[in-house]
């Protein structure tokens, strides 16, 4: 029978939580209050407290969304930029860049950035980095060849100021 959402298998859940810890330094304990769900390759977090008590019917065809998407493709560890905004900057220990306002505007306009023009950063390797502006997380960006940053956006706004 069709089932849009499923509870994520513990093995994959543990792998994703370990990835978030090893890549960004996000404490594994942070996720103890969340249940993980998947739909195709996307992964979602839902506040855990009432999941079991309410016994959400995941087979319900009219169930359209569960919690917040944090991975757009968990197999590639592709983050959902908007989803990653729920983390706080103090949770992020590595693989991040801090943009100034001009760079943040470029980010939302989907423009590439050069990593050597970013003053504050902590980068261990190519891949997805967390983008910080003015002490809050505004999304994620992909570093390639240790030099160029490509915004990972689900929408572009050319009028941002």
């Amino acid at each position: 029978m069709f089932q849009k959402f499923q509870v994520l298998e513990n093995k994959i859940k543990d792998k994703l939580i370990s990835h978030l810890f090893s890549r960004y330094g996000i404490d594994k304990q942070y996720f103890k209050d969340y249940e993980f769900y998947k739909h195709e390759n996307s992964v979602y977090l839902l506040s855990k407290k009432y999941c079991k008590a309410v016994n959400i019917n995941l087979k319900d065809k009219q169930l359209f969304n569960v919690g917040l998407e944090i991975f757009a493709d968990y197999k590639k560890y592709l983050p959902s930029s908007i989803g990653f905004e729920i983390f706080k900057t103090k949770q992020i220990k590595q693989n991040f860049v801090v943009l100034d306002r001009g760079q943040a505007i470029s980010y939302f306009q989907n423009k590439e950035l050069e990593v050597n023009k970013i003053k504050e950063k902590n980068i261990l390797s190519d891949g997805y980095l967390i983008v910080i502006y003015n002490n809050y997380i505004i999304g994620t960006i992909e570093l390639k060849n240790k030099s160029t940053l490509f915004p990972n956006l689900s929408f572009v706004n050319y009028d941002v100021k």
Partner: protein
Amino acid sequence: MYKNSKLDIEKNEVFIPEKLKDKYKIIFGNSYDEFIESCKTRPKKAIRINKIKCVDSSLVLEYLKSQNIEFTKFPILEETYLIESNVSAIGNTIEHLAGLFSIQEISSLIPAHVLDPKEDDIVLDLTAAPGNKTIYLAQLMNNKGLIVANDVDKDRIKTLIYNLKKQGVTNTIVTNKNGINFNFNCKFNKILLDAPCSCEGIIRRKNDILKTWNENEVLGKAILQKKLIINAFNLLETSGQLVYSTCTISPEENEEVIMHLLENEPSASIEKINLKLEGLSNGLTNYKNKNYNSSLKNAIRIFPHKTNLEAFFICKIKKN
């Protein structure tokens, strides 16, 4: 403070059908002219800082000040500020794109405030799209507990999901069911029914909204609202609370819907709403030749000429 605008008042022409004018003359009596004048002015924009993402609201407020945007705190609503300056494109700022604040109409937030959900609640938002009230509910619950956000319109569901995502809401599931026969695995202890209506109350924002108004639309909406409120009440657990609201003025869609509930559900009773807000009016207890249950005076009417906000009706009901 929030009633006195520092802006020059730009007067717009508004269209109100003659039949509706006759109706408003009955409802407003001597204040009718004052009401019509208030319809010609636009309400102020307001922003609500998203506490889920923005722990330190000064980050947003300092940015506004740096752009010479004046604002005043709106009483009773969390982190909500009226914009006192003429601004355009505030939605194109980094802070808005990052979901740190949203642009809101004040009246539309008040029903969620009246429902006052807590971290332990299981809440149903029966007609949720596009999600502004759902997001405020999630904020009041500190993103804990559970919200079921439902809407019958599949296209508006997509907007609802996007808005929830943008604001970082993790305690909500979204369903696409008809509210008239919506069912779920459990009862809810709090329900918000911000019912689809004829939208007379948004005339200040859209001054031609009433060009297609007709009495049949009002009666048709009232039939729908009565079905919705009965189902919503049945989904409520004992001692649970339901807040019913609309952004319209017609009593057929407001007091008469509540009357329908009271007449069909003996365990329903209207609760007094304690809101410290200047200029609020009570629900009507009579209209034309109809007398309503006296407890309807405990419902709230927000009228633009008394509050400088958009018109709204809010009623809080308890299941005994």
